[in-house]
């Protein structure tokens, strides 16, 4: 393990545990010969915004996919509001209040904005199985207004929107649901500064409301310190650091990564050099 601190390697303290909405203990996941996650411990408090950091391939996206029910962990336990949590599918996780916005943007290009917002939650004219498009348009407009996203037309295909607008709609889709835990997988990827600011504003507004708890994968340390209450860093499939953002700095975060990089290089040398 990297030197600059592994303050939270075991379970969280009992006082903290009581207010956790989501707690993850000793999660491991392998894909054939590749170990994506070794031993991950993570907790999320109500109304908290947790930043998840880590290099490419460190296991962030795998962790998110396990949390949202898309993949199953090989080992470990998860707790949702104190109850054991074993999602059988994305639908199951969603029914339990966990929604995800994916890195690869699960928006459907050919569908309109409002159909995307309501995908798998469509309103229909009961008892007929026909889509209630007007109702969905109206509700979509209200939902977007409420969280302050300005999309001029909601009946156009999302293919015609900008990256920022698409991301905003993807976030809105989760907020629009009854989710109380939202997972954002690199919400600022491939986005201009202005559009990124729009998404961070949105996250800030959600934090103010305090209704939802958010785990957000980010790459930019400045964004993490700006938008998150706490930061967890994954290295080599385990949590290497877990601190409130107020107690850490860009320098400390950078140091951890640099040290890890040096250690990995050393390890590589040891592996290959004495081979003769």
């Amino acid at each position, binding site marked *: 393990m990297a030197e600059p601190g592994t303050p939270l390697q075991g379970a969280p303290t009992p006082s903290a545990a009581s207010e956790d909405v989501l707690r993850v203990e000793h999660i491991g996941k392998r894909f054939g010969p590749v170990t994506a996650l070794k031993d991950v411990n993570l907790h999320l408090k109500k109304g908290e915004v947790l930043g998840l950091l880590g290099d490419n391939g460190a296991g962030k996206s795998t962790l998110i996919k396990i949390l949202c029910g898309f993949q199953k962990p090989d080992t470990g336990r998860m707790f949702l509001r104190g109850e054991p949590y074993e999602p059988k599918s*994305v639908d199951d996780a969603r029914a339990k209040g966990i929604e995800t916005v994916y890195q690869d943007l699960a928006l459907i290009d*050919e569908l*309109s904005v409002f*159909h995307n917002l309501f995908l798998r939650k469509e309103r229909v*004219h009961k008892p007929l199985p026909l*889509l209630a498009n007007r109702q969905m348009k109206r509700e979509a407009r209200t939902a977007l207004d409420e969280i302050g996203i300005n999309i001029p037309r909601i009946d156009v295909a999302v293919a015609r929107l900008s990256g920022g607008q698409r991301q905003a709609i993807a976030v809105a889709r989760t907020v629009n649901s009854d989710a109380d835990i939202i997972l954002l997988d690199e919400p600022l990827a491939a986005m201009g500064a202005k559009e990124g600011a729009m998404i961070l504003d949105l996250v800030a507004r959600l934090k103010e409301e305090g209704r939802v708890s958010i785990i957000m994968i980010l790459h930019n340390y400045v964004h993490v310190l700006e938008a998150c209450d706490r930061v967890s860093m994954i290295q080599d499939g385990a949590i290497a650091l877990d601190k409130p953002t107020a107690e850490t700095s860009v320098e400390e975060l950078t140091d951890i990564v640099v040290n890890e990089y040096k250690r990995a290089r050393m390890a590589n040398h040891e592996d290959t050099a004495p081979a003769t």
Partner: protein
Amino acid sequence: MASVTQGSPSPSPASGGGGLVSTDAKPSPARQVLERLVSLREGSIIVVAIVVAVYFAINTSSFLTGENFKTLLPYFAPLAILGAGEVFVMILGEIDLSIAAMYLFAPIVFFKLDSAGLGLVPSVLLALIACMAVGVVNGAFVSIVGVSSFVTTLGMLFTFEGLSLIIAKGQPNPTPGAQVHQTTVQVHHIVNGHNIVLPEKVNHIGTFAKIFGGGVYSELIWAIVIVLALQVVLTFTRWGLYTVAIGSNKIGAAEAGVKVKLVTIRNFVLCALTAGLVGIFEAVRSQTIQPDPSGPNEILLLAIAGAVIGGTLLSGGSGTVVGALIGALFLGILKDGLILQGVQANYLLFYTGLAIVVAMTANVYVGRARRGSGSG
């Protein structure tokens, strides 16, 4: 059904149909109609079909007659029904080549079951269920095993065409329930005030045959009902929405919780069902069950051509059932018109091929205009 009229005016969930909403200047009504037409996914093929129809109406006196309409029907009604099922598979980004085999297989199963004494309607239903089972296999291979749909259905095409030949032992058979009965009736004539009774022969076909393709307009009615019903399913139900979603972004749809395997299998079942149904209609109409794959294979390719020129993308994510009907109508008008014009039989395929390329080119340009015009 109220939602059909109050919902989005466009026939596709993706197109939104709001092309007219934002125009603040008032264009002439003709221009509005044109813009509206262009904003439709089927717009270009409607224009092309009308142009071709007008051309033949001007150039041949017999084109615009009721009699000719009747000869036109068998060209396009089967293609429209086949296309309707195929569109559901094509929007997924897949293709079903095995429809030609279902077209051949269903009537042969129907004949065998009827010969075994099951009765007409139960035999038809079981034959169609057999086709649907093949659809399940197609869908399962594509969505669960992960074999490409082209390869899967190509294999099933040969397998079931071969199986049809084996079952029929290569022999044509009379279609059960479709035979024409001639009866002699005494008709009263009044000639010069005298009542004269003369015998006359009258052809009868049974109710079963009238319903299942034997009646003059039977296939047309089936085609219209099936196309409209499936268009409603595509545009106004979750099934249709998920079909478009999978074709547009399969992973995204799965991550959102759409049951990709279920929808894929269901669409292949639907496609196989429509193909089996058309096979039975055509067998009843022609009164014989020919175990010859060449006809079905040509119809397969024409049905796909009709769907594609009707505005359905081979790459998936977009398509319309009504478009496939109009595409089929276009192919029908073309063939019928060329024959009426006295074009040599040897030239028919050649002209059909050129027309498909021209219609597709028109589609591409109109599609660009549509995307540029600001309507989704």
